[in-house]
């Protein structure tokens, strides 16, 4: 009898602990994009999706940066065609590995395939190879938290010096020069970068390398190379730290730069500083060159662009599929899904979710390539 009472007490404590845990995790996860996905985009014309004879189930994996976009697309596509698409979003590297092992029908990646990955893909694409299809653009916002400063303009050398710990105070003359009239406090700059390997880091440092080589003497890549600074995991982690820390600055996908985080405008050399926005990212991608050979559509962004209103810190994420030799049982569904996301309706869904649509002449090439998949 006594034992039972003790058990009940233990159970009550356990229940308390579990419900506390649930409450905590609910706070921790940033559910971005969902609102947009269920709002405006769900009214998009689902009947325009061409299903052909797509059926069954699709497995996909890859970049977490485009997960919210894929989720919104999958919702529409599944509604129209009844094909279940399971996109895991466990990271670009993991996605490409899963693809070259033949586990998924297509993969998402923040960076174009490397030559050795193309070679590895020839095993699963009988008679063909893997190709990059640019599908989602995304502005990388530089968010900051400086009390009393609502607007901030920075240029590439200043950004490089801030993230390389060469500028350590917000009232540094270099920042003051770019922001005439702003009341910059005598506050220590706390620069945050990603703690895990990330395509966002890769693209942000590519921008610094292309535009401020002398202030950013690193070779680039998915891992952060500069010493010092502080770090956090994921765009959501960076956003949370920037929100919490007075004097913080960090780079994140645009959808996370909200609720009190102001994005920096970039002085690119155009007539006015460029704001981080979806439209401005698309303008920057329009300045990109296709560098992939054959049906591969890997892009090379022009980070040093001075075009009016082109936001240069932008990443393009790709879908990766076989040009020839896709598995017979997934080909129809893969093709139908890719056709939908490259369509006008599909690209419209992106802007509702804080992603940038791919500019017209590039997406036209993507559509042609998709029709040729076999």
């Amino acid at each position: 009898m006594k034992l039972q009472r003790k058990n009940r007490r233990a159970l009550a404590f356990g229940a308390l602990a579990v419900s506390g845990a649930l409450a905590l995790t609910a706070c921790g996860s940033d559910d971005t994009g969902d609102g947009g996905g269920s709002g405006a985009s769900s009214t998009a014309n689902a009947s325009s999706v061409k299903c052909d004879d797509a059926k069954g189930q699709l497995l996909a994996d890859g970049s977490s940066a485009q997960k919210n976009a894929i989720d919104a697309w999958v919702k529409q596509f599944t509604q129209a065609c009844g094909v279940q698409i399971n996109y895991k979003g466990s990271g670009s590297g993991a996605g490409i590995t899963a693809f070259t092992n033949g586990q998924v029908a297509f993969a998402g990646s923040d960076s174009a395939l490397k030559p050795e990955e193309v070679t590895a893909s020839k095993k699963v694409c009988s008679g063909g190879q893997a190709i990059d299809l640019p599908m989602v653009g995304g502005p990388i916002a530089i968010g900051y938290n400086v009390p009393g400063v609502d607007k901030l303009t920075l240029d590439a050398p200043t950004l490089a010096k801030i993230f390389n710990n060469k500028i350590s105070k917000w009232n540094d003359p270099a920042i003051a020069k770019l922001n005439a009239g702003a009341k910059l406090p005598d506050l220590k700059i706390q620069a945050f970068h990603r703690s895990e390997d990330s395509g966002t880091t890769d693209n942000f440092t590519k921008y610094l390398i292309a535009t401020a080589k002398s202030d950013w003497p690193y070779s680039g890549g998915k891992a952060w190379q500069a010493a010092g600074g502080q770090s956090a995991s994921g765009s959501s982690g960076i956003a949370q730290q920037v929100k919490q820390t007075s004097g913080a600055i960090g780079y994140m996908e645009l959808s996370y730069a909200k609720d009190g985080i102001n994005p920096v405008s970039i002085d690119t050399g155009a007539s006015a500083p460029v704001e981080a926005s979806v439209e401005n990212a698309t303008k920057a991608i329009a300045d990109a060159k296709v560098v992939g050979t054959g049906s591969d559509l890997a892009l090379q962004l022009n980070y040093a662009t001075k075009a009016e209103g082109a936001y240069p810190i932008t990443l393009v994420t790709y879908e990766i599929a076989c040009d020839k030799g896709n598995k017979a049982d997934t080909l129809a569904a893969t093709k139908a899904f890719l056709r939908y996301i490259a369509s006008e309706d599909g690209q419209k869904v992106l802007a509702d979710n804080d992603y940038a649509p791919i500019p017209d002449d590039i997406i036209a090439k993507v559509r042609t390539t998709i029709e040729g998949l076999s």
Partner: protein
Amino acid sequence: MDTTQITDASPPTPQQTEAELKRAARGATRPGDRIFLGLSRGSGILLLAIMAAIAVFLTYRASIAIGKDDGNFLTTFEWNTGLIPPKFGIAVLAFGTIVSSIIAMVIAVPIAVAIALFLTHYAPRRLSGPIAYVIDLLAAVPSIVYGLWGALILVPHMNGLYGWLDDYLGWTGIFEWQGGAPRSMLTVGILLAIMILPIITNVSREVFRQAPQMIEEAALALGATRWEVIRMAVIPFGRSGVISASMLGLGRALGETMAVATVLSPTFTIQASLLDPGGGTFAQNIASKFSEASDLGRDALIASGLVLFVITLLVNGAARMIIARRKEYSGANA
């Protein structure tokens, strides 16, 4: 067989006695005994085989990565397996793992021993039961929950302590604070201390409870105060048990992953100050780098895991040596 030996009139030679003793120790062999012997021996060998297989696998994968490393695996302050050639080293990770665990032990062991002594020798029985339950439950909370609690509640509340430490102990260099977000080794150490507290407390409590009642009563009868009883009879008796308990806690602190990854601001630098953000631990680094790692990156992470394995082995070996030296106090000889 045995009867013939016993009825033998001639004095047994040393060899005979030994053989007889062995046989006697083995006892009668019935099928049940033989099956049990086979099962337990098989399990023992299986365990060794599994351990050997893990060691071979880890060493093989690690050697691939280390062979391709452009930096020095032990002294490089960088982890960049995506470069051509790749460059990575464990210096920062080893430093961070050891420092954070030491902080955790310094905080947790005295508190855990104090709680255990309170529960066994001071607290009224009605209080000690529920407290023991709560401590047990602390051990069952998943580490990610500690991590989230640490990141959302502990970190924002550390500023006061950090400012105080900087004001009064900043001159040491170890407690100098530049004003960074308190996502540093000290915060991680405090969080780890909370996480390893239950296991040390529980094991210590069990050990202290085993302290021989007669000696305690004798000491009381001689006029010792309760504290003197604890100091002279309970603590010496329980010392090796507390060391074992601490080693269990240390093992958890060395290998803790998610909580550290959530609370720390990992960077590949070593700071003299415990209050400046930065640093890293083996387990945290593996967790945060694994998802985007290439094949080589994964092998490199395995190599770092192997180093953690070796460190844990050394720590456990050292603990065993300490306990062996204090054998006269251990429960087995009391």
